[in-house]
């Protein structure tokens, strides 16, 4: 392997290695399978350079900024000993992060098109906008609620597998009773709602909380917050599909 001393250069090299597989896959398929010339080489090179530099900054920033702030806040809340504030904070964080999430806004718009096309809602502008907003609210409420459950679980030490089984049974039941058009959107909703900012922050929250409570293990108890986000947002979005 290439050995580099400078830490910044070292992380640039490792970011480049992280991005390299995508380039290899695209180039191989372009030349061997599709057999068409590549478009603009200059753009490709500049773009790749930007991706590598951006990734380096991003990973560094997440480690130096977002993880510490999430952990320090979790520790402060645990020291304060106020369960209510911890819960309010968890809900606000989940709801606030998701309601403004650009990917979710785009997906909700697309989903409103489906709903209108299949006759779930009226096919006019205001009905579509209402549907898209309702969808975003359901996901945001779901993620807020999921973080609350997750935080309570860490504090009280509930075993994770049981909660996941309950969530899973909920999904089976909801799938069988909710309208078909909403199922695909619901299944995707959790994955769409979790972004590059929310994931590290929520992970730091869980790990920080689990490390500041004596009888909890950060590895076993700190994770699982995001898992609830998936299960609960699926359930909530299907419930939303049933209400309209």
């Amino acid at each position, binding site marked *: 392997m290439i050995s580099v001393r400078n830490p910044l250069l070292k992380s640039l090299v490792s970011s480049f290695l992280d991005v390299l597989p995508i380039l290899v896959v695209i180039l191989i398929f372009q030349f061997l399978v599709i057999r068409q010339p590549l478009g603009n080489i200059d753009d490709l090179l500049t773009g790749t350079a930007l991706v590598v530099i951006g990734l380096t900054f991003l990973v560094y920033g997440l480690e130096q900024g977002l993880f510490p*702030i999430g952990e320090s806040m979790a520790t402060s809340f645990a020291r304060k000993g106020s369960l209510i504030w911890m819960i309010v904070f968890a809900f606000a964080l989940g709801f606030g992060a998701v309601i403004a999430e650009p990917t979710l806004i785009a997906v909700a718009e697309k989903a409103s098109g489906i709903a209108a096309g299949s006759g779930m809602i009226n096919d006019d502008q205001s009905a579509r906008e209402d549907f898209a907003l309702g969808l975003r609210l359901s996901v945001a409420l779901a993620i807020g609620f999921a973080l609350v459950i997750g935080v309570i679980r860490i504090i009280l030490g509930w075993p994770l597998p049981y909660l996941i089984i309950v969530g899973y049974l909920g999904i089976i039941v909801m799938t069988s009773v909710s309208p078909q058009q909403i199922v695909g959107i619901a299944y995707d909703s959790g994955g769409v709602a979790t972004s590059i900012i929310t994931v590290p922050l929520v992970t730091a929250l869980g790990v920080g909380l689990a490390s500041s409570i004596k009888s909890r293990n950060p590895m076993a108890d700190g994770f699982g917050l995001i898992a609830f986000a998936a299960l609960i947002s699926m359930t909530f979005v299907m419930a939303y599909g049933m209400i309209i």
Partner: protein
Amino acid sequence: MDWIVNFGKIILETVRNVVPIVAILIGFQVLVIRKPIAHARKIFFGLVYVLLGISLFLKGLEMTLFPLGELMAKQLASPEFIQFENSDGKTSWRSYAWVYAFAANIGFATTLAEPALIAVALKVEKISGGAIRALNLRLAVSLGVAFGIALGTFRIVTGSELYLYIILGYGVALIQTAFAPKLIVGLAFDSGLITTSTVTVPLVTALGIGLASTIPGRNPLLDGFGLIAFASLFPIIAVLGYAQFAELRTRAARNSKDREDR
């Protein structure tokens, strides 16, 4: 000069997306916790790096990978590219072999470059005291995504029901949960959603919609959805499997060592 204006716009957009979260963090810190943050300077500069990083990263992706990836997804799924096997002009699911191959490869590659997963994997390596290697975890998740997306494209091609796959997949994950080491369960169930953030979602969505709009009988709006669900379900199975495999290997090593000692 154009690119400066352009880049400025992207930074502004990122700032606008981050503002609600930062407002919540600062609000709770100032109003509820009422204590200064430790290492405030370091954290502030870290957040500036995050902002710059996201902007550069997204700009770069928009310039290269997204248009290329979308174009390829479209070309691979186009009727001219798919060779018709049957004489009656119907395509069988086998004709789409290159689509599955592309889906698996691009899923694997984009997951390796997913920043949130890189950061969380480094964190996990630290907390677990090196028992879980960051790269191994990322490879396990990437394999899961690769398999998931390939299976997801197969579902779009065949037009089978989404919920069957999802319910079966979760069933497998739950059975594994009963046998896997307890320490890994939370992380495994988290890992699926950790991966589906910046790089994977746009490319995978493009692939799904491209496929659904070229295959006869599929509705792009309806069948284009569901691929993300595959991408976030199969990493759970992969990470649980990785943990079970690692445990088996340590146990086997211990057994053979015991035998030697005797």
